């Protein structure tokens, strides 16, 4: 009983506070602060953050709901007061309260059941679609091949406007022995592919080079990475090569290549057991060349002046012109074993060991007069990791010098090359990283997620980018079969097919303003055209549940972009319209009454025509130690008198 009384008392107090204008003011103040905070958030972090943290948040909806309850209570209190006092009905206030209630009701309907999405079709082409995109939700689809067919699992989630902190994960569940977790989420992602140090030390080297002018102004910066057969890069008009030399003696070939005595067929350098042996090829084709006194011999089987791979697996010469000189060699080892090897003049380090499966102990560097140096720089990495460089300036090679990180190599013509970074063993790191997006830049840097796919105790991580034509799909071969993953926005059915027709003349002239115009057709399931309409900004299309409004202005100078429509469903539209109307009417009445009263009182006071009841209301009266001061509307408000105001 006591508890009941307690509840009744406190309930009554709470209700009275809820029904008071003080509560309204309090809620409005909180709302105003929330709006200012949202605006600040939008300025600092973008619209998506403001929408997520403030305008679309549950607490904000609750605040609006509280305002609605407050208005309801105020209205109920006003009605009760009217019955008690038997006074006049406060029409203005009641209508405004009812209008606000209706407006909030409509907003609540839209919040719960409303849909806002977009549909886009390429402009200038005849394309169609029957779904639209809901940008507030993401979908991760897992298609799993099972003996009974393909099973598709869709996980819908709102992933938020910001990058996930480290350690935050989302378990997306398991399907047929394959479980998926999202271990990283980047809201605005940019694809990267860069070189990092290879901790296992079995990949080739990489250099970060900067081409700069005489004033050290950067012209271009680029990575130069090398496989075992070397690598090359082009920076503007200059070319760069990087050769990871497998043996130390090859530095001699790099430093002092035979230029004078190349002959017609060139010179072959043979590197074996820490020594180099050079032999001219002129007249040596078909003969065995001894590799010093080691007992090893190299037979020059064939010379291909313009080598091309043949379909049968070997090489053939396309012409007699030395376009791609190649030597086919047979290495006779001391134990009688023979091995086939090839020496490419253009690719000195290229071997066919990966094809033949045999590792030849003799290394070759084939020099040929047809291979002319290109302007730029060549780098050679020694087996111990030291880096050497030679440059080619105006068809002349400069002496080889050792280079380190930070060194600058002159290239002639007032250009220099600077070594910014050197990785003796580098591997390519690919993925997505977060990028700061400026305000109003749209969603060109879509979100990316790192998904971890686990099956049979094995886990594999895959990056996917939302909605990207290249990176939204991934296919993983597992022991359970092939698993397809995709990351996209949620798609909802329109209920019909929307077909965009190529644009007609939609431009405006100088006197008439321009509008966004699109021609579309609505087609049902059987292919019948239900409606054909030109969609303008002032005449959107209402079909089925949804309303379609063009979002972008037609730009005839860009015919390759898409026409985007906003697709909306607002179940609270009628309530909102009615609420707005009631608010307008109620406010008008309220303010009109106040203005007329205010003016009447002010005029009366000024002209000294106050009499009777009005005189009492305008003259301040002092009762029981409190000064009652008349307000412009005649209501009296009590004020505590100051010390000097004692009657």
């Amino acid at each position: 009983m006591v508890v009941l009384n307690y509840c009744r008392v406190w309930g009554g107090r709470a209700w009275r506070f809820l029904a008071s204008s003080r509560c309204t003011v309090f809620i409005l103040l909180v709302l105003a602060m929330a709006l200012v905070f949202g605006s600040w958030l939008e300025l600092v972090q973008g619209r998506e953050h403001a929408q997520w943290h403030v305008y679309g948040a549950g607490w904000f909806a609750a605040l609006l709901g509280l305002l609605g309850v407050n208005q309801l209570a105020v209205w109920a209190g006003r009605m009760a007061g009217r019955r008690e006092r038997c006074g006049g009905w406060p029409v203005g206030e009641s209508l405004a309260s009812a209008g606000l209630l209706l407006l909030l009701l409509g907003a609540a309907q839209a919040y719960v059941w409303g849909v806002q999405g977009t549909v886009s079709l390429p402009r200038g082409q005849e394309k169609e679609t029957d779904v639209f995109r809901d940008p507030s939700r993401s979908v991760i689809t897992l298609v799993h091949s099972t003996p009974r067919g393909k099973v598709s699992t869709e996980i819908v989630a709102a992933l938020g406007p910001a990058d996930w902190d480290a350690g935050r994960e989302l378990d997306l569940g398991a399907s047929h022995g394959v479980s998926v977790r999202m271990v990283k989420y980047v809201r605005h992602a940019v694809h990267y592919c860069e070189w990092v140090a290879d901790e296992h030390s079995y990949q080739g080297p990489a250099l970060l080079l900067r081409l700069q002018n005489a004033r050290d102004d950067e012209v271009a910066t680029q990575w130069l990475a090398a496989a075992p057969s070397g690598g090359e890069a082009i920076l503007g008009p200059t070319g760069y090569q990087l050769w990871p030399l497998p043996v130390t003696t090859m530095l001699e070939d790099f430093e002092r290549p035979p230029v004078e005595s190349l002959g017609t067929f060139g010179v072959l350098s043979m590197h074996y057991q820490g020594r180099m042996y050079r032999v001219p090829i002129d007249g040596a084709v078909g003969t065995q060349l001894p590799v010093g006194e080691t007992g090893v011999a190299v037979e020059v089987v064939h010379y291909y002046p313009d080598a091309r791979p043949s379909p049968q697996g070997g090489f053939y010469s396309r012409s007699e012109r030395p376009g791609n000189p190649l030597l086919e060699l047979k290495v006779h080892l001391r134990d009688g074993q023979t091995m086939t090897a090839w020496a490419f003049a253009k690719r000195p380090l290229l071997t066919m060991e990966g094809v033949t499966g045999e590792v030849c102990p003799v290394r070759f560097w084939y020099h040929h007069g047809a291979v002319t140096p290109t302007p730029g720089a060549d780098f050679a990495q020694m087996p111990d990791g030291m880096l050497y460089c030679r440059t080619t300036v105006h068809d002349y090679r400069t002496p080889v010098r050792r280079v380190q990180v930070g060194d600058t190599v002159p290239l002639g013509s007032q250009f220099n090359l600077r070594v910014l970074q050197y990785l003796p063993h580098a591997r390519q790191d690919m993925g997505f990283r977060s990028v700061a997006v400026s305000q109003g830049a749209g969603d060109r840097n879509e979100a990316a997620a790192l998904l971890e796919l686990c099956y049979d105790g094995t886990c594999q991580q895959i990056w996917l980018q939302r909605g990207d034509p290249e990176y939204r799909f991934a296919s993983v071969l597992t022991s359970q079969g092939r698993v397809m993953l995709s990351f996209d926005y949620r798609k909802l059915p329109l209920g019909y097919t929307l077909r965009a027709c190529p644009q007609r003349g939609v431009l405006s002239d100088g006197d008439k303003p321009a509008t966004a115009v699109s021609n579309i057709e609505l087609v049902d399931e059987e292919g019948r055209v239900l409606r054909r309409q030109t969609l303008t900004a002032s005449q959107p299309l209402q079909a089925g549940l949804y309303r379609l409004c063009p979002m972008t202005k037609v730009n005839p100078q860009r015919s390759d972009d898409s026409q985007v429509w906003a697709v909306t469903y607002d179940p609270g539209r009628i309530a909102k319209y009615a609420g707005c109307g009631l608010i307008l009417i109620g406010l008008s009445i309220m303010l009109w009454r106040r203005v007329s009263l205010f003016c009447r009182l002010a005029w009366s006071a000024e002209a000294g025509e106050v009499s009777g009841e009005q005189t009492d209301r305008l003259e301040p009266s002092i009762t029981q130690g409190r000064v009652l001061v008349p307000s412009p509307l005649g209501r009296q408000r009590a004020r505590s008198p100051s010390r000097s105001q004692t009657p």
Partner: protein
Amino acid sequence: MTMIVRASPWVFALRLAMALVCVPVAASESPDWSTWQHLRVSDGERIQPLDSLARTMLQRASLWTSISDPGSGEPLSATALYVQMLLEWHGWDDVSPGVQHAAAGSLHLPYPDRWDRLPLWRVDAPPLRRALGLQPDQRHISPLEVSRSKVQLRDRGGDTPLLIWAAQLAARNQESLAPLERQALHLAGEFRDYLDWRGGRQLKCVPRQGRSATPEAGHEWLSLSEVVGTPWDSTNDPLGLMRSLRDRFLAARRAYLAGDLNQFDCASMDLRDLMSQAGRSCEAYPSSRMLSAEVFWNQWRPFRWAWILFLLAAAMTACGARKDWKWCRRSGWTLAVSSLLVVLVGLVLRSVVTGRVLVAGISEWGAGVASGAVLLGWTIALLDRRSWIMSVAALVAAVSLWCADSPLAALVLPRQPLTPDGIAAVSWIVHGISLSLGLSALALAWGLANAALLRWLRTDEVPIVCQGIGGDVARAIHRCLTIGVLCLVTGLVSGAIHADLTQGRFWSWQPHEIWLLLTLVSYMGILQAAATGRIAAFGLAVCNAGCFMLVLMTWFVATFLLGADGRRMNLSVASPGFVLLIMIMQLGYVSLSVYRYRRVRELASRRAPSVLIANDTSR
């Protein structure tokens, strides 16, 4: 003496009219630029006279409406500036296509002339100023300085030329650029545009023959560079029009460089006629009358005259009210009526020639607010028989029109108008009119509040004087607030309905919606407080003066910080600091008034407490 006193306003008015009508006659030794002012050009959106385009370009770049000749120091109009730049460009010396093509790709100034040394671009953004090493008193920078500027970057060893840095930034992801990088990129873009404008590559002056040329289709218009640099023959120019155009332009240039003004004028007129002839195939080509109207508007600048007249009207009505000079008061009213007529004529003319509606840009907003404030002020002044209200209204209108006339207005891109069609158009018109009227009412209330605070600031006799002013002020402010709030609600509702009808969203918490809502709630709070007696005359004035900062904030947020529809102002050119300065000054002024009022009241209460209590209705 009485006659002199009576005649003086009419003499003043006559002299003012003469000053308005008399256009300064060009000196005989300077070329006649009026022919060039009337050339029809396309900026990609609409066809307009070269005069409008040159003015807009100059205002957006430098915030100037005219500039001094670097050689003679004489004032130059925007058209004169641009045409001289165009004619003195060295690239016209060789008009072969190869040379023109090479010039199009160049980012250097190999032969800098006097125009390249002209400080043309205003740089206000502090990071960019620091990066460029500008002196504190240097507000503008010349193209030559830009081409030679170097910036010190943290991640690089030495100085990097601005243009090279900008070229690297342009290749980067634009969304990931820092504010300084965006500002630098913008300045480099301005430099590139400068080269293009000087080389005539952006001056789209002739519709391409044989195709439907529209103002939006910029590629359908030939630039002057194309006209001059294309090898025309009978196959691509069967009528020989383009060849004639090229010859006339080059003849005009030769005459200009030779100083033969007569020949230059003749060649200029021939060029204009030939361009008109070439433009006849274009349906949207504006008539000569329309073109003249726009040039007239540009030269006349009605909003400038209107704010000057309104300022005079405010001074005269205030003086008349204070001294009780009837002639002064009447002259003030006459000036105010004339100014309003000037505003309305200017507004209509502008809407006709530009095709923009009432609330398309800052100029239109300013004129609308000024008109509304004056009309409302008149109404209240006549109802209350208080001419000082008229004085305040004229002052508010002058401030509003000054904003509309200032070069800052050119920085904010005007909103694309809509085709009047159905309920959406009605809601848009209602939205525009009601918001203009609402802002007018709030601006007038703000002016009245500040005037009242000034009176309170200057008086020592709080109770009696305050009550006297309080009666007038409270009534006038309350009326303005009521009208303002009603109009704001109407504007907000009609805007929401318009957004729902055209974009499918009734309310989407856009920054301008939010701040308008905050403003509305604040003003409703003031009205409610006044109605419940929590504030009276002084409180009404103080709250009103403070709350108007929310109106300013709404405009500031929607235009500068989080502008919708691409209407955001370019912050590298103009810093938004002046808005903050105005707000700080206003809040300081209000604080000072409150302090003064409290102090005077305290002193007065010590002297005669009973009197204070009896008359203290003006809190």
